[in-house]
């Protein structure tokens, strides 16, 4: 069995701290496989993460890695990319990190179209702190801070990213590993702000509270409810309801990346590139 992905991990930092059955490891592996597939190297790629379960991934990955503060991965990553545009910058974030405390940075990152690839590990919950509702907890689902079911309406992070100006937007799940890897690859290829929502099961903090069964059952739920974008588009509106959700590439368009655009500013100002 080909295990070339192992070279991308800091073997001495493993095993990881995630719970048994957690989907984060699957997405982390998909990221390095996409990096390998796209021919990026460990020397020219930087992994930037925020705070939370997902964001611990940076510590396991053998690159220059930056574990920032809660919600702040995108500003830090923006600084890394602008300071050294030769670097490929991948951001790992979670639903709370990206859409709650980091929400403003998220939409402005999309708007600016800085060349970053942002992978959001969506487990629908704050896992690290023990299962509080996030802006991506579905209405009615239970959390320690929503013991009677969440009354909040959740964000559709993909729709948000697309509306805010990201030039590549996709979604996949921890069940659809090959598809997920392809979605991330597409993001790495896009020269601009790429956003990939990777749905992951959190059996400990989310599944248990919502009686979703063991990890395999939570993944079976992803298998049964995810609908490929092409098929989703053909569904009558009435059937795009309930727990069904689309996966695939939602947006892909040309757009000048901020880092490229700024080189023009330097040219106009007459500054030799230093």
């Amino acid at each position, binding site marked *: 069995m080909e295990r070339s992905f192992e070279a991308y991990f800091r073997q001495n930092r493993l095993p990881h701290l995630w719970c048994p059955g957690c989907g984060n490891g699957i997405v982390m592996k998909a990221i390095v496989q996409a990096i390998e597939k796209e021919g990026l190297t460990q020397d020219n790629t930087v992994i930037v993460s925020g705070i939370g379960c997902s964001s611990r991934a940076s510590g396991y990955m053998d690159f220059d890695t*930056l574990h920032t*503060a809660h919600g702040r991965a995108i500003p*830090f990553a923006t600084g890394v990319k602008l*300071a050294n545009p030769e670097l490929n910058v991948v951001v790992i974030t979670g639903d709370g990190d990206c859409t709650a405390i980091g929400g*403003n940075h998220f939409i402005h990152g999309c708007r600016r179209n800085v060349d970053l690839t942002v992978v959001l590990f969506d487990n629908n919950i704050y896992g690290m702190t023990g299962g509080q509702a996030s802006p991506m907890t579905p209405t009615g689902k239970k959390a320690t801070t929503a013991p009677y079911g969440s009354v909040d309406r959740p964000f559709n992070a993909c729709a948000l990213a697309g509306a805010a100006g990201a030039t590549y937007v996709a979604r996949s799940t921890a069940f659809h590993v090959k598809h997920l890897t392809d979605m991330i690859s597409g993001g790495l290829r896009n020269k601009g702000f790429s956003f990939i929502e990777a749905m992951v099961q959190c059996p400990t903090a989310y599944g248990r509270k919502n009686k979703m069964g063991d990890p395999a059952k939570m993944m079976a739920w992803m298998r049964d409810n995810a609908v490929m974008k092409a098929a989703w588009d053909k569904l009558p509106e009435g059937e795009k309801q309930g727990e069904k959700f689309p996966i695939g590439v939602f947006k892909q368009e040309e757009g000048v990346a901020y880092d490229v655009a*700024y080189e023009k500013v330097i040219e106009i100002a007459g500054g030799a590139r230093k």
Partner: protein
Amino acid sequence: MTAARLMQGNEACAEGAIAAGVRFFGGYPITPSTEIAEGMAQLLPKCGGKFIQMEDEIASMGVVLGASLAGRKVLTASSGPGISLKQELIGYAACAEIPAVIVNVQRVGPSTGQPTAPSQGDVMQARWGTHGDHPMIALSPWTVREAFDAAVMAVNYAERFRTPVILLMDEIVGHLREKVVLPETGEIEIYPRRKPGKTRAEGYQPYTPDEDLVPNVADFGQGYHIHVTGLIHDETGFPIGSPKITAEAIDRMHQKIERVRDEITHTEEFFMEDAEYAVIAFGGTARTAYEAVKNARARGQKVGMLRLMTVWPFADKAVKALAAKVRGILVAELNYGQIVHEVERAVAGACPVELCAKYNMEIFEPEEIEKGIDGLVAGGNK
């Protein structure tokens, strides 16, 4: 020497940062610091650097830290309300040891306060604004030329000690226009970015302290595959839940500054040869205090002055020496009384310490400080 120019303090700060090698600025508009951002937006692309206006103050701090880790010398600037927001990541820079200069052109607070009248109310915030134990360097210039020099010094200290440095300006100096002659490029001493002394194969660890207790953290993209985190970490850069390592990490963070305390604590004395009383002041207020002391001298009072250019670390030594020499100290500051407590701590009862405070959105008039001197002298003659 360059030709004389009429220049504003904020402009001089921007030019000083560029001269010191800053090539990246992230900011957010706020009066009275905006001219620094505007200056950087104008100047940076001319020398191959980059300016970015971020969505908020937190992001402005984050973007400069990212750029610093990727090898650029960095600056951000704001005023009280914005500095409050930046505190989270100022602490990150202290913990992860990332060079960065944060300019605070102080205005009246708390909260939105009195925009954008002058104040020196952020002295304690500069020291303790972010959570947890950490050292801090803060420099407070009193002239336009010194705003330039302090910017250079702040960048050099940030790089040399791999620590956040606060350039604690105030609206008085930030918006002041003076004729200045700036030094030539060759006359400016610049501390270069620290480089790893070892290769990965030789066992390089990013947070192994050098002889001066400062680590030579590699810039991103050099093939070192380093890990940077705001968690307390060991020499490898990785978090570790060890009481011993935690204490050692916090000790080293403090000691790397403490060991150079005398060298970086800049003060200036005036009329101290025969002085029996002294005024302590810093930043824009020191300008008024200087006038007041001169006027008092003209009236025959034997008064001198100590100006704190480095506000943090506090000038314990200079203040103690002063207290041993004089019969009383007057602390003039544009706030409800902040640095006076540090003066009292350093003086430790060796002489009386009195406060001349003002916090009504106006700057001091020399007469107000002279009145304070009169009170001090009268008290001393009791």
